[in-house]
C-alpha cells in the first residue's frame, strides 16, 4: 500500500485487507535535493572507498605493547606478528586497538552531542531553528552528506543521533573477541567511526550555536568576531575567580547568565581551560581563556580558582584531590565524570553553598546547569574572601630549600613523558641560575608524573612554576572567539583558488597540547602558513596555545592576520566539536563551488576532496582518543593529517609509498583512462619528529592532482622554501611534483630545470625551456581525477 502522507486524503472504503497502525507521523521531506546513493551508511556501505584508501595509504603499525590481555585466554604474546589464542594477529589486534580508540573518541563527541540536545530541548524546546544567517545556506554539510537530512530545528538531530548511536554499538560489537580478524576491516571500521565522529561533532556544535545564538553569519559573526583575553596573566585574581574546565558549555553558560542577571559581570572573573573556555567566550562576553589543557594542573595548583566547575572530557582524574590541596571547592556537572561526589542536584542551593564554603563538602555533583550558575557564583564570592590569605606559589626560601634538596637521581626524568632533565635544572638553580628551570615550564605538559617518583618529595611542578612565575604572570595573549561555520559566500570566493591551487592550502591546527617542545611550535606553524597565504583554521587547544606568543610588534597571530576564510586568514573556528566546520568547508568547496550533489553522497564528495582540496590537519600535540577519531574522520573524507612525535604512540599511521608506482593510479573521469600520478597527498597520517620537519611536510601534503600549473608552482615554491629554511636542503622528492616547466617556481625556474637535468636525468629542451622527458605525467588542464569508476562520464573507446 502507498505510504499515507500527513495531510493526504484517502477514502476509507477503498481500503481492503489493510491494517492501519499509527506511529510517528512522517512529515514529507521537502525535496531539496535528490537522495544520493549512500544515506546513513552502515558498516559495510563505504568499505570499497575505505579499501581504496587503505591500498594507497597502507596501515602502518608500531605497537606500544606487544601483548593482549583483553580476555581470559590471555595474556597473549603477539611479538613478531604472532597470533593470540583467539587467532588474532598482532597487526589485526592493533587495528582493533585503533578502532577502540576511535570508539572512545567518537563516543565522547557524540555522547556530548546527545547530552547537549537533551539539555537544549529542555531549556529552549525542540523547535529552535537552525538558521545561521544570510551567508550560510548549507547549514549542516555533514548531516546532509552522511544522513541525507536537512535539519530545520534542533529536534531533527534526534534522528541523526539515533543513527550514530546504532552505528557505534554495531562497531563496538566488532571489537569483541572472536569477531573481526582482518586489520584492513578493522581500519575500515575505524574510518567509519571517524566519519560518525565528525558527524557527531557537527551535530553538537550546530545544536549549541542554534540554541545559544553563538556567532554565525549574523552581524558581528564570522570574520568579525571579537578578540578575547587568553593566558594565565590575564586573569584578575583580585576578583573572585570561577574556573570552568571541560567541553560541555551549558553549566558555564548558566554561570555567565547568573552573573549578568545579578549585575556581577565586573565583580567576578569567569575563566576557563580547554574547549569549555572557548565555548564560554561564544556565549558570555566577559569570559577569559586561562589556558589550554597542558596548563590545567598548574593553573589549579597556582590557586587561581576560588571555585572549579568541571563538565566533561580532558578533566584530570585527580581533580578533586588537586582542588582540595588549594582549597578550591569543586562542582561537577556531568554524570559522565562525578568523581565520587554526592549528587546534590535537588538540594537547596544555599545549603550547598554553605557546605562548600565551610569545607564540609570538598565538592558536589549538580546536574542542573541553572543550579550550577547560582551555586558557583554564590560560592565563589564567599570563597574569595576565605582564600585571600593563601600563599600557593612557593616562597623564595621554600624554592631554595627544594632545589638544594634534589639529589639529581634522575627518577623524575625517567617518569617524564618528555624526558625533561629536572635534576640538572635544579642543580643550576642552586648556583643561582634559574633559567633552565623556568624554561621547563612551557616544555612541561603538566602531567605530574615526576612528583610521584621523587624520593625527596619535591613538589616539582610548583618548583618549576616558581622559577617561571615572572614569565607566567606575563602570559597574556589575544584570540578570536570561535566563529563556527565558514560562510557559503566565503567558499564561493575561494573555491576556485583552492581547487586550482593558487591558495596553496587550508591548514587546520587542531587538538590537544601534548607537544614535544612547548606551545611555541603551535604559534610557529600558524605564523608560517598564514604569512604564506594559506588559510589557517584552528580549533581546540592548539587555537589557544597559538595565541600565547607574539611577534616583534607584540601582536598575536590573531591580531596580525584577518579572520576571513581567505588567503592569509587565521580563523578560530571554535572548540573541538567545531572542527566539523573544517570538514564542512572542504565539503562545501565540492558542493557549492563544484556543484557536486551532497545529499547521501559521501563517497563522491570524499573522492573530490582527496583529489582537489589541498587541506591538511595538524594535531601537533594530539593526545586523546578524540584526537584519534578526529584524525580518522578527516582521513576518510580525504584530508591528511600530520601529528607530532607523541602521535607515533597512536600505533597506526596511514603512509603512502611513492616508490610503488602502481599505488598511484587515478582515473580520468572524462574518458575512463587510467593515469599514473604524483603522490598528492602522499600520506593520510604521518608523524614528524620536530616542528622544523613538520613545516615542509605540511606543505607537501597540500599537493593535489587537480592543481593547475600556476597553483602547483605556488605550492612547490612553499614546499621547497620551507625545506630550505628549516632543513637547509632541497626536499629529496620535489621533482615528483613537477609535471611541466610551468609547474616550476618562476623565480628559480632555470636553476630547477638544471637540477632536474643533472640530478634526475630529465631531458630538457633548453631553447624552449621545456621538459621533454622525466615527469610521472604531463600537465593536462582538463584532467578530471577520480578514484571511482562509476563517475566515468564516457567510457574510453
Amino acid at each position, binding site marked *: 500500500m502507498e505510504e499515507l502522507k500527513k495531510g493526504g486524503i484517502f477514502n476509507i472504503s477503498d481500503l481492503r485487507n489493510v491494517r492501519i497502525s499509527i506511529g510517528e507521523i512522517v512529515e514529507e521531506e521537502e525535496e531539496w535535493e535528490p537522495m544520493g546513493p549512500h544515506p546513513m551508511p552502515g558498516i559495510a556501505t563505504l568499505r570499497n572507498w575505505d579499501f581504496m584508501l587503505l591500498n594507497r595509504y597502507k596501515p602502518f603499525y608500531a605497537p606500544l605493547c*606487544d601483548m593482549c590481555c583483553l580476555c581470559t585466554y590471555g595474556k597473549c604474546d603477539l611479538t613478531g606478528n604472532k597470533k593470540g589464542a583467539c587467532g588474532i594477529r598482532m597487526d589485526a589486534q592493533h587495528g582493533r586497538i585503533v578502532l577502540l580508540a576511535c570508539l572512545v573518541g567518537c563516543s565522547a563527541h557524540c555522547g556530548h552531542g546527545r547530552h547537549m540536545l537533551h539539555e537544549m530541548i529542555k531549556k529552549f524546546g525542540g523547535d529552535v531553528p537552525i538558521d545561521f544567517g544570510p551567508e550560510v545556506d548549507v547549514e549542516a554539510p555533514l548531516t546532509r552528506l552522511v544522513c541525507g537530512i536537512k535539519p530545520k530545528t534542533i529536534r531533527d538531530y534526534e534522528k541523526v543521533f539515533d543513527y550514530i548511536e546504532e552505528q557505534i554499538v554495531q562497531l563496538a560489537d566488532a571489537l569483541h573477541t572472536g569477531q573481526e580478524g582482518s586489520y584492513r576491516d578493522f581500519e575500515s571500521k575505524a574510518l567509519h567511526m571517524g566519519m560518525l565522529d565528525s558527524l557527531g561533532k557537527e551535530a553538537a556544535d550546530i545544536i549549541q550555536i542554534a540554541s545559544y545564538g553563538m556567532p554565525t553569519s549574523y552581524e558581528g559573526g564570522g570574520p568579525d568576531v571579537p578578540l578575547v583575553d587568553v593566558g594565565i596573566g590575564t586573569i584578575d585574581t583580585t576578583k573572585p575567580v570561577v574556573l570552568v574546565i571541560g567541553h560541555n558549555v551549558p553549566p558555564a553558560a548558566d554561570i555567565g547568565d547568573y552573573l549578568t542577571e545579578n549585575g556581577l559581570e565586573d565583580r567576578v572573573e569567569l575563566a576557563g581551560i580547554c574547549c569549555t573556555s572557548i565555548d564560554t567566550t561564544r556565549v558570555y562576553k566577559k569570559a577569559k581563556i586561562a589556558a589550554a589543557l597542558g596548563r590545567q594542573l598548574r593553573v589549579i595548583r597556582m590557586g587561581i580558582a576560588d571555585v572549579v566547575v568541571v563538565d566533561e572530557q580532558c578533566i584530570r582524574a585527580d581533580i578533586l584531590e588537586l582542588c582540595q590541596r588549594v582549597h578550591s571547592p569543586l562542582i561537577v556537572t556531568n554524570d559522565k565524570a562525578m568523581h565520587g561526589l554526592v549528587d546534590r542536584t535537588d538540594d537547596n542551593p544555599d545549603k550547598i553553598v554553605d557546605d562548600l564554603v565551610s569545607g564540609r563538602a570538598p565538592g558536589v555533583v549538580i546536574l542542573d546547569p541553572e543550579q550550577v550558575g547560582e551555586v558557583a557564583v554564590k560560592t565563589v564570592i564567599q570563597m574569595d574572601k576565605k582564600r585571600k590569605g593563601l600563599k600557593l606559589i612557593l616562597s623564595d626560601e621554600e624554592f631554595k630549600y627544594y632545589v638544594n634538596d634534589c639529589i639529581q637521581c634522575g627518577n623524575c626524568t625517567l617518569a617524564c613523558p618528555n*624526558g625533561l632533565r629536572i635534576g640538572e635544572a635544579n642543580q643550576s638553580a642552586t648556583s643561582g641560575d634559574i633559567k633552565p628551570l623556568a624554561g621547563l615550564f612551557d616544555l612541561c605538559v603538566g602531567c605530574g608524573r615526576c612528583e610521584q617518583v621523587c624520593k625527596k618529595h619535591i613538589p616539582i611542578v610548583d618548583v618549576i612554576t616558581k622559577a617561571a612565575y615572572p614569565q607566567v604572570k606575563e602570559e597574556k595573549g589575544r584570540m578570536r572567539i570561535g566563529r563556527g561555520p565558514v560562510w557559503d559566500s566565503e567558499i564561493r570566493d575561494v573555491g576556485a583558488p583552492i581547487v586550482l591551487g593558487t591558495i596553496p592550502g587550508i591548514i587546520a591546527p587542531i587538538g590537544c597540547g601534548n607537544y614535544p617542545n612547548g606551545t611555541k611550535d603551535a604559534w610557529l606553524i600558524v605564523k608560517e602558513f598564514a604569512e604564506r597565504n594559506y588559510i589557517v583554521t584552528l580549533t581546540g587547544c592548539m587555537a589557544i596555545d597559538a595565541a600565547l606568543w607574539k611577534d616583534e610588534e607584540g601582536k598575536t597571530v590573531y591580531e596580525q592576520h584577518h579572520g576571513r576564510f581567505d588567503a592569509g586568514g587565521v580563523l578560530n573556528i571554535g572548540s573541538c566539536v567545531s572542527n566539523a566546520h573544517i570538514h564542512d568547508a572542504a565539503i562545501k568547496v565540492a558542493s557549492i563551488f563544484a556543484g557536486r550533489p551532497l545529499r547521501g553522497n559521501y563517497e563522491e564528495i570524499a573522492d573530490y576532496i582527496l583529489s582537489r582540496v589541498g587541506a591538511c590537519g595538524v594535531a601537533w600535540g594530539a593526545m586523546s582518543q578524540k584526537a584519534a577519531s578526529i584524525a580518522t574522520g578527516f582521513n576518510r573524507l580525504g584530508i591528511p593529517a600530520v601529528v607530532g612525535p607523541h602521535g607515533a604512540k597512536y600505533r597506526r599511521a596511514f603512509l603512502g609509498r611513492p616508490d610503488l608506482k602502481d599505488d598511484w593510479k587515478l582515473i580520468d573521469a572524462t574518458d575512463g583512462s587510467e593515469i599514473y600520478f604524483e603522490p598528492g597527498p602522499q600520506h593520510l597520517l604521518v608523524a614528524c*619528529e620536530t616542528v622544523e620537519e613538520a613545516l615542509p611536510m605540511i606543505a607537501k601534503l597540500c599537493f593535489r592532482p587537480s592543481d593547475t600549473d600556476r597553483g602547483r608552482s605556488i605550492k612547490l615554491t612553499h614546499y621547497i622554501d620551507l625545506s630550505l629554511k628549516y632543513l637547509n*636542503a632541497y626536499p629529496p622528492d620535489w621533482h615528483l611534483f613537477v609535471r611541466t616547466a610551468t609547474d616550476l617556481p618562476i623565480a628559480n625556474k632555470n636553476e630547477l630545470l638544471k637540477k632536474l637535468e643533472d640530478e634526475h636525468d630529465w631531458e630538457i629542451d633548453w631553447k624552449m625551456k621545456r621538459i621533454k622527458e622525466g615527469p610521472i605525467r604531463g600537465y593536462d588542464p582538463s584532467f578530471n581525477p577520480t578514484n571511482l569508476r562509476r563517475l566515468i562520464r564516457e567510457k574510453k573507446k
Partner: protein
Amino acid sequence: MGMEIPFDVANIPGPEMGEVAPPEVIGSYISSAKRPLLVVGSEILRDDFFLETAIEMGRKGVPIAATGHSIRGFVEKEYTENVSYYNLHELTNCLRDPGWKGLDGKGNYDFVIFFGVVYYYASQMLSCIKNFAIDPLIRAVSIDRYYHPQARMSFMNISPEMEEGYKDMLNRLVSSIK
C-alpha cells in the same frame, strides 16, 4: 650485560626486551652486517660531537638516513656523501617491506642503528621493526643515552653528568667498526 629500566619507565613492551650491550659488541655487529643503516634524528644536533660521530660512521661506509631536521647539520658540515633526508615514519614503513630498494637502490637493510631520535618516537619505530620486519629479519639497535627495550640491543640510561663517558662509548663504537 643485564637488565635496565626503560628510559621512559613504563615503556615495557612485553616478553622480548632488548639487551644492554657494550659499544664494541654493537660495533662488531655493524662490521659484520651486509647492509647496515644509520638512522639519525634531531637530537644529534645538540652537540657537534654527535654529528661528527655520525659523519665518522658515514665515512666508514655506513649510509645515513637523516630524519627529523638532522639533515641541517650534515649540510652545514658539508657532508652529504651518503646521507639522505627521510621522515622516520616513511623510512620505517619502507624498512618493514622486504622489497624496498633502499636509499641507494640496492635493496633493504639487515642492521639498523638508531642515533639521536626523540626517545618515544624512536621506541615506536623500533617496535615496528621488531614486530614486523621479521622475514628477513632486520636487527635494530640504539646507541643513544637511553635504554631502549624495543631495540634488539641498546646502551643503558646515561645521566647528564656521565656525558663524557657516553662520548667515550661512542668513540669506542666508531673505532670498533671495521
